[in-house]
């Protein structure tokens, strides 16, 4: 109803951030022709002041987010400002330092700032992409309902497998018992996912790490589905065939639901994981900036 983070207030903060960048550029270009732009000129100090103010404003978001009684302005508005001013920060800081880098605390602060902004870019991407993907994956049902469905299908599978002998029952039971949903953040992200981002390794995950295509085949050999398909080929009994087909159908339905829950968990993890870096490194950035400022004034 309000539009997206980016389009808030008819791109109000995009315009403000663009104006800020323009001012910074003008300041940078106004440096004396004979002197290389750097943080020590009056333009450099001004840009440094703007950068420090921007960093403090961006960090204040963490406090503002938790000031729940402040309902006069929406957090949505703050996020929009946070995004655009955060994007403008590397430009202003780079102009402040005049492209001068070295192995020192000043460049450390710069590096941390870049890292925080890059992680923020990922966060923005996650916030713009995953909510819709998550909603589409849910199809109007909650995760709890999906898990309840899996539990129901587990019972149905086991009941059907019971009629097909001990080995079939054992295979299905193993599949049911070994199904993992959630876990550590890393498990939440990789569980049940094909990772095209790691094409070199061609890893596939089916509950446990399997490091090679060969190992993947071994897992398949042990899977209930593989066993049942073999069973289907060998069996001559019509009633048994019907039971196996029915069981395969339920197993497929179950696997589909398990994949949906794993996707749901993964999307949630994608939306959360970046904050684990973004927030602590922001704090480190604050510390580095303080050291930078103090040392600059100490040696002034």
């Amino acid at each position, binding site marked *: 109803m309000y539009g997206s983070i980016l389009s808030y207030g008819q791109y109000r903060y995009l315009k403000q951030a663009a104006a800020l960048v323009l001012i910074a550029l003008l300041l940078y270009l106004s440096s004396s022709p004979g002197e290389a732009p750097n943080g020590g000129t009056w333009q450099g100090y001004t840009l440094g002041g703007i950068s420090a103010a921007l960093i403090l404003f961006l960090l204040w978001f963490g406090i503002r987010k938790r000031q729940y009684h402040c*309902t006069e302005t929406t957090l949505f508005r703050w996020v929009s400002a946070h995004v655009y001013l955060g994007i403008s920060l590397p430009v202003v800081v780079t102009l402040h330092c005049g492209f001068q880098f070295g192995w020192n605390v000043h460049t450390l602060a710069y590096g941390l700032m870049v890292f925080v902004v890059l992680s923020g870019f990922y966060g923005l991407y996650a916030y713009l992409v995953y909510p819709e993907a998550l909603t589409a994956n849910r199809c109007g049902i909650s995760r709890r309902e999906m898990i309840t469905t899996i539990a129901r299908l587990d019972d149905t599978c086991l009941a059907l497998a019971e009629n097909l002998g001990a080995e079939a029952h054992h295979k299905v039971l193993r599949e049911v018992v070994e199904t993992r949903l959630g876990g550590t953040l890393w498990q939440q992200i990789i569980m049940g996912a094909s990772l095209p981002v790691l094409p070199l390794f061609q890893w596939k995950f089916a509950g446990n790490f399997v490091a090679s295509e060969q190992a993947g085949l071994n897992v398949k050999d042990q899977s209930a589905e593989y066993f049942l398909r073999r069973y289907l080929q060998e069996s001559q009994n019509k009633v048994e065939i019907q039971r196996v087909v029915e069981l395969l159908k339920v197993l497929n339905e179950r696997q589909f639901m398990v994949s949906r829950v794993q996707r749901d968990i993964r999307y949630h993890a994608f939306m959360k994981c970046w904050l684990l870096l973004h927030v602590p490194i922001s704090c480190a950035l604050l510390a580095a900036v303080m050291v930078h400022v103090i040392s600059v004034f100490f040696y002034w």
Partner: protein
Amino acid sequence: MKNPVCSVAIVGGGPAGLSAAIRAAETGLSHVLLEAESHLSNTIHRFQKGKYVMSEPVKLPLRSSLAFEAGSRESILDAWTSEAVRLEVNVRRNSPVKSIAGEDTGNFSVELADGTTVSAANVILALGLQGQPNKLGVKGEDLGFVDYHLDDPDDFNNKVVVVIGAGDSAIETALALAEQNRVIIVNRRDGFHRAAAGNRNAMLEAIADDRLECFYNSVPRFIEEQDGRARLVLEASGETSEILCDRIIARLGARHPRAFLESCGITFSGDETTALPMLNSQYQSTVQGLYVIGSLAGYPLIKQALNQGYEVIEQIRGKPVSPVEEELLLDKFTGVPGFATVDEILTKVGGMGPIFGSIDALPLRAILLESRILSPAPGTAIFCHGDYSDSFYSILCGEILIQLRENEPELIVRLNASEFFGDTELISGRRRTLTAIAGENCILIETPRLAIKKLSASNQTVAETLEIAAVERSLRWHLIPGLTENDFKTLEDRVTCHNYETGEILFQEQAYGDSIFFLRSGAVTVTQTMDGREVPYRLVTAGDYVGGWGALAVSVRRATACAQAVTSTVEIPGEDFRWLVQQYPELLRNVHSNILTHHVGKTEAAQQNGEVISFLMEQGLGEATDVLLIDESICIRCDNCEKACANTHSGTSRLNREAGPTFASVHVPTSCRHCVQPHCMNDCPPNAIHRASSGEVFIQDTCIGCGNCVQNCPYGVIHLTSDKDENKPSLWARLLFGFDEAAVGGTGSGCHKKAVKCDMCKDLSGGPACVSACPTGAAFRGNPKDILVELKEEASCTDQY
């Protein structure tokens, strides 16, 4: 066997009866207290163990000899029982009363179930409202395995328990027991239609999750003992089945004590289920010497019952005291000339007109106690157009000016002493559509919505008076402001009133229909058929009308109108409507403007939009005034909305983001909709639920935690909890160490649980915290009508592409 005559027989050992017996014992009055159960105060005894019992209303002084302070169920029961022992109250336990004969003081025969008779000069009925539980009516119904109530679910562990019944109490019993037992519920029907929506959903969910087993369409045949356990034989869907179990708990409702009271000769104020026994100001019924007190007399709170027990004994002793409430009543009228005594107040107010004139002294006193007396300065606005107040006002003296249109101050109706106003919104539950301004020397009685609704439900004269006024005001004040009295007289007998249940059709598309429907209350969706599907495109609420096109064009209906909440209408025949638009051209302009505004093209976007509207209507938005929606396509599931809610409401979130249905990325979370006619308000003993002038329905601190509102809310948005602010981590602890605000909780034992629900953060100037704390703008709160208009505009934009 006949006992000697005693001065007073008290039937029922609850707070009212026990208070009377204690006072009788204290003063040496010969008495007998007849209690059906083996213990006193059965209702409190049945409360959950450790339940905190409130002592509302705080401002009402306690007059009883029985001490009462808010405390745990156990402490109250212990104190009362030891007081009864100390004063040697003459109690006969296990003595249910079968009948009471005798029609005059000094001549009552109280027959007990065991055949014995007690003779008494006076009888006090303090039975409460629970009545006698209905029994199974099969062989074995009284075996030791069979109970008709559940004291404490923790008494059962790893047992097989059969619960028989399908109402709220059966469901609550079954769900409570299912936590640590195998529970089988036996339902005579094929569903749980009688139960409140919250309970019904919880039960269906428990059955779906296999936490409970259910026998539908099943009737118990007999119960017998088998190897120390109970064997229940029942007929389930035509086949005989049997269940071997440890306990059978039948929750089949109770016989309301009204029939018993009528058999004693007591007259009721009407035939409605809400009608009360007719009593004088000293609680004496239409049978002299027969008194009715406590919840049976319409006073559900413990303190009221205790006071009444004391006062009736004093009356019987010949030392009458004026009821303690009368002092509060006199306080209300302080400074109003001519209202110095209670008699003066009751006589003058009783002579005010058809509303108060038709009420007996006792209910009149009760209603005045709930009312406020206002003396506004001339020119003061009592309420303004757009306000969200639903009080009912009666003019004690002076004049009130009703401004019919916000932008036409000269269009005024004058009301004088004995007339009333504010009734329209009482019925519709929506914002004020008029402005009321005080005239010279104006004194008003402001009566809360619930009190006047109760009154109209139990008093036919009041109901008829309000109905007649509502029809006239619908036409003359709302539909056609300025309609002359003569024109109204012409119409009066031609218009008809209708009531529709949710889902009922007012008129069908393509059917011939030559009339318009003015909505007095409720809401109606207008739908058109597009490609064989019903597509809603407009929500019409109270104060507006539908059917204008059909009535003007004298043609078939262009659309279908379907009630989305309980709706009442005034139907004006097409012929009269066409005559009206000729007489009042502004009405014609209004109809034309309505047709143009709400015309909708039969486009794909309109169809998709219609599907979303249908979904929202299914979620009860038709009866909502303000609803929280979440756009899941941009919601990042951070739960900041819940955290904001918990932080601004003593640590407990009133909203459950995850719960609730979703359609086309529109999610309706479990959060209060601030209904037009709030279901939660219907049965609140301390009258703790109110609507603020800006529309928020909220629960006051005077809540006693009875849970009635939790049961009555069809959307499951109210829960009982206790404050937990004291354990809240500091901002820095949350920020640096990740301690977080829990969402819903406060379940610690011994806590004073109260009902909590969304109050739309009425005390925060910036509006609801859930909306302002949403980082992506996904949370949105608004009036359903506005939301529908916005959806329609979005659909129109889509069409343009």
